[in-house]
């Protein structure tokens, strides 16, 4: 479903150019539950943003369902973000002036195929709000909610257009461990429903709960069996997943 080949990404700061990702290859099949782990600044979020079509300024190719994201027009890529993927961010990124229901229905404003009127959008938003167990918070503003509740609202927004892929960038980073575990359980449930879930995290425990784990380190991407060991020792042959070994 997701095919990354030879991806390179560098950032320029003044005259200094830093290469964060170097010849990254990655294949994720439909319905997989995948984590990408790595230290801060290793480039894992950069990879996730590129897969999500938020960044096209990279080398190599990223194909999702056979379509090269870099070759799409802005409108096509926007449609892809709207309908194929759902984003969940560490900082929730809810719009503070909109109610929970309106935040969740936000993707409907930019829907291009089968556009929805406001009533239909709110009906669908109420459905996903119930799915994340926050039906009673429909008219609440995000500022009135706890961190865990806000992240559930963000997840509900990501689910609004029934995406095939959930791209989660440190989704538990701003939550306590109990709330974080609940959110991961929610992702697992969604994955059980057939949604492909890709989680970027620096927490080996969360990574351990996913079916496949990848470590981003020093520009490279390696699939690992034991993310905690790989994180602290660097990648060794013992840590690599059997199918990823040469």
């Amino acid at each position, binding site marked *: 479903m997701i095919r990354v080949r030879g991806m390179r990404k560098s950032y320029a700061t003044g005259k200094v150019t830093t290469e964060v990702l170097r010849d990254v290859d990655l294949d994720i099949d439909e319905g997989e539950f995948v984590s990408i782990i790595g230290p801060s600044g290793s480039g894992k979020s950069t990879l996730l943003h590129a897969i999500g079509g938020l960044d096209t300024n990279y080398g190599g190719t990223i194909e999702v369902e056979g379509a090269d994201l870099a070759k799409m027009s802005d409108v096509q890529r926007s449609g892809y973000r709207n309908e194929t993927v759902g984003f969940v961010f560490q900082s929730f*990124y*809810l719009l503070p002036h909109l109610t929970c229901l309106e935040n969740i229905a936000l993707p409907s404003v*930019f829907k291009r195929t089968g556009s929805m009127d406001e009533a239909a959008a709110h009906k669908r938003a109420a459905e996903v709000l119930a799915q994340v167990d926050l039906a009673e918070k429909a008219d609440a503003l995000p500022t009135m909610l706890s961190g865990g509740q806000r992240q559930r609202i963000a997840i509900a927004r990501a689910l609004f257009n029934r995406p095939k892929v959930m791209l989660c960038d440190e989704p538990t980073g701003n939550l306590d461990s109990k709330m974080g575990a609940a959110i991961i359980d929610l992702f697992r449930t969604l994955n059980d429903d057939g949604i492909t879930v890709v989680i970027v995290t620096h927490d080996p425990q969360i990574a351990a709960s996913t079916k496949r784990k990848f470590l981003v380190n020093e520009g490279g991407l390696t699939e690992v069996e034991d993310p905690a060991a790989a994180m602290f020792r660097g990648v060794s042959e013992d840590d690599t997943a059997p199918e990823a070994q040469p």
Partner: protein
Amino acid sequence: MRSSRLFRVVAANLNRSRNHFLLASVGIVVGIATFSFFIALGLGVRDVVLGKIFPLDQLEIVPKSLDLAVGPLALGGASAIDQAKVDELAAIDGVEVVYPKMRLTVPSLGIGGKEVLGTDLRSEMVADGIEPALVAEDITGKYAFEDFDDPAHPDYAEPEACTEDADCGDDRYCGRPIGYQEARLRKKGEGPKEHPQVCRHYIPIIASDHVVELYNGALRRAHGFPKLNPEFVLGITFELKVGASMVSASRKDEIIRERGRLVGFSSKAITLGITMPIGYAKRFNVAFGKPEDAQRFHSVIVVVPEKDDVAAVAKAVDELNLEVADTGAEQAALLIAIFIAVFSLVSAVIVSIAAVNIMHVFFMLVYERQHEIGIMRAVGASRGDITTIILGEAAVLGAVAGVVGVLLAFAAAAGFDAVSANYIPDFPYKPSTYFTFPWWLVASAMGFSVSFCIFGAFLPARRAAKMEPAMVLSGH
């Protein structure tokens, strides 16, 4: 993106940032109010000047003349326009209709006004005649402007003898027969004592709006007369002595005594004097001159409905060895056009400065909302959607500022008119309102307001659309 959903997003954003937008829109409001106020003032003044003082759609055509100044006298003068020339004028492209005018070529005296002013006035009368049909739309009161002495007129009848007005009913008076000339009484007691008397129709008389304006604006003050309402002086009658004059040297040996009745006002009437149906003027001129005087017109009013045709018509008139009388309309139109242009420019400068202010505000808002823009991009907004939202906010801001600006202009105009009505003394052609707000002016003001706001928000919108969502959302 559905327009109704877009409008909700735009409305929510405007509501959130209303304080910023309130400050940003002040300049636009002032600029649009200035624009609407002064353009409306220019148009209002133009309506008065070119509609009443110098009607621009009517050209007065006169024979070409070459006047030579010899001491206090001007020698030369113009010949008349004959019927053939009138027909040629009517055939010029762009000319809708022609109004031949015949001046009364003999002196005349008007005596009357007691019923309105309390005392009779005697005045030399300058008079001319025009076709009644040509002022039909101006004369809508109870009195008709028709040639009752024309044998072809439906009401024409053989005159009945009478001894006093009461014998003739309300609409007629007891006077001399048509064209009856009586010898002037050179000395007291001379002349025939008895004249035949028959029932006659009053000569219908119309006057120019100028006459009332001049009377109310200047003459009445000098003599302490009351102000006249044009509608209330209709129907007043006066004596008209054709051939008589207060200037002894010009006196004819015989005079025709008539009575006239003021039946209406028209811009087509002679500027200073009285205008009667052309048949009366013809009969008087022939009575005191020659039969061919019935076909000699001193000018022709040519109606050119399209202002764009005026130049071509003037050229064709010149080729007929005639000329357009200089009424000052062109100079007046030029002055008004300059006035409108100058204030349009001032308004444009104000609105342009306001647009720069709007640009600053939108740049600031785009910076403040960069995360929000990133979120929208993440959930499917395209660059075009982001541009549309920001320009939509600018358009709504412009529309609201435009409405407020136009309302402010309306209010200022109403205030100006109220001050004029209550505190500025009457003057000739003093209008009840100095302003004209045609629909296109309001539409233009709204259009300018929206356009300048969109113009101001264009660069910020472009910057917002170009933001890389990944950069914004990752905090780089």
